[in-house]
């Protein structure tokens, strides 16, 4: 059951990281062009939300199953979490400015900000994972597995429902119809 819980957390994180890498590369390209254009533009518009939501799902599962350890790590976890909060908020602002601006070119500052949020998020995630893992190993912490069956059942029921739409989103987003 513990393995199941960690699978439900880590598999979405791995999925997120793969596309996170591509989106970071897109952010670099946007910096060069100063305007969202080309193939990367529709991709980011459509898929950034899916990639992010997958990470949110993983975090919600982590939060639910590791709630009893959070008071013990919260003080050490807050700095990377604060960094992540800032990164996400700046990304949302930069996203609006880059993809919904009426200007033909957008101030470079937005492009730099957009890229910086990906770097910030990566730093925050690695930092946060180190804090959490350290605590789990040192205290031999076992997550709450009482609802593992329910969460797994949810994954079994919901994921097939999402496979085709997700495939269509990434396929179209990558420029292939």
């Amino acid at each position, binding site marked *: 059951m513990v393995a199941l819980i960690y699978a439900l957390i880590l598999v979405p994180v791995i999925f997120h990281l793969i596309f996170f890498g591509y989106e970071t590369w897109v952010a670099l390209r946007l910096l060069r062009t100063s305007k969202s254009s080309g193939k990367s533009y*529709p991709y980011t*518009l*459509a*898929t950034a*939300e*899916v990639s*992010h*939501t*997958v990470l*949110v*799902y*993983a*975090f*919600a*599962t982590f*939060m*639910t*199953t590791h*709630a*009893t350890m*959070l*008071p013990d790590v*919260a*003080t050490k*976890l*807050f700095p990377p*979490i*604060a960094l*992540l*909060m*800032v990164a*996400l*908020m*700046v*990304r*949302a*602002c930069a*996203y*609006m*400015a880059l*993809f*919904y*601006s*009426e200007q033909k070119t957008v101030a470079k500052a937005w492009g730099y900000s957009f890229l910086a949020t990906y770097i910030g998020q990566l730093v925050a995630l690695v930092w946060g994972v180190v804090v959490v893992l350290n605590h789990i190993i040192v205290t031999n912490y076992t997550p*709450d597995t*009482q*609802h593992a069956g*329910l*969460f797994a059942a*949810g*994954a079994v029921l*919901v994921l097939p*429902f*999402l496979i085709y*739409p*997700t495939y*269509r*989103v990434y396929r*179209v*987003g990558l420029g292939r119809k």
Partner: protein
Amino acid sequence: MDNIAMGRALIGDSLIFHIIIVLLSIGLPFIMNILEYLAWRRKSQKLEQVVRLLSRWVAVLVVAGVMSGTIIALQFSTLWAPFLAQMDPEIRKYFAIEGYMFLIEAVFLSWYLLSQGKMSTGKHFLVGLPITLGAMGSAVVITMINAWMNNPTGIVTSTTVWEVTHSITSYFFAATIFMMGFVAWHLWKRKNSKFAQKLLFSLSSLALVLMGVLALLGHRSAVDLATTQPRKLAMIEIHDKTGPNAPLRIGGYLDENGTAQGGIVLPGLLSFLVGFSTDTHVKGLDSFSRDTWPMQIVHWLFDIKMAIIGLISLMIILTIGFYVRTKKQPTWFLKVLVWCGGVGILLVELGWAITELGRQPYAIAGQMLVADAFTKGIDVVGFALIFPILFIILIITTGFALRTVTKQWYKKEKITW
């Protein structure tokens, strides 16, 4: 400023912003689904154009909503870790279930946006349905958690039923009023067309129905408060003395002795509303120790909310009345309607403020004080003072984005109505 106060301010800012996005992200897809269904059945190009505008708004709003929602989850896991740890695991699991709802909404929204114009209207309508269902599902499970915080006697209680139904219906209502404001703006600034007038009439009719449903649900919620959250009801009504013949007081205040003063007093009406008899006993503030009383502002917020409800009901009835009599709205009235577009959002904010402030000083009613729910040892003062600036920037950039997509819509669709 101490850490707990700033921590409360930070989560309060986050929730105030997030709820705006949430209600529009639930309500606008709901309207979008209805209009797309009608567009499909009636083969209406004009309705399809309106659907495309709504989908662009939703695409913008969901970006802001996803980020602000994530911010709240991150705060819960660090700043409010004791609260999470103390939660009944049977309730806590709903945070994870929300993740599934969220996935459904996000994936189908992305597919919906990418497939617009590439599939038939009927199929596209079906792709759009899970967006509303996923968004509603998220709201239902989160509101279930909040209902438990207000009444932690069970997982699904009467509080759950009334809080969930009342809040979801209010989101539909707020989004409908928002749309009415936009259509009124279109009629005023762009063109007075038969289609837009009829659309405004249809939206106002929907708003009237929703208002009626909300009135019933609001009343049942308040009646439920009398048994499950009497302390909150007592402060909402500044009802100071337990007993029958409880009066309804509009306005007024509590003096330093905790006695209600001033305002317009309607004898026996509170007892009647709670139990359909003036003999109904209603618990007053005297039944609770003073240090557990919520803030008095809860009463004033409630009175303001009721006053606004009266005014918006009048606006809705006038909108319908003008259309029935003359098939159009006077220009002065259109201007008023434009300004009223945000009133539904304000009502939702007031409702949530009353619910949350009315539970204070508890995080979990009767079980955990807010002070005990906050993580000790985190210095959040500086962060809490600066972080809200990002919310302000996000509000401004989201507003500009909505304006941009609307202007682009007018240009691309070549709107002639």
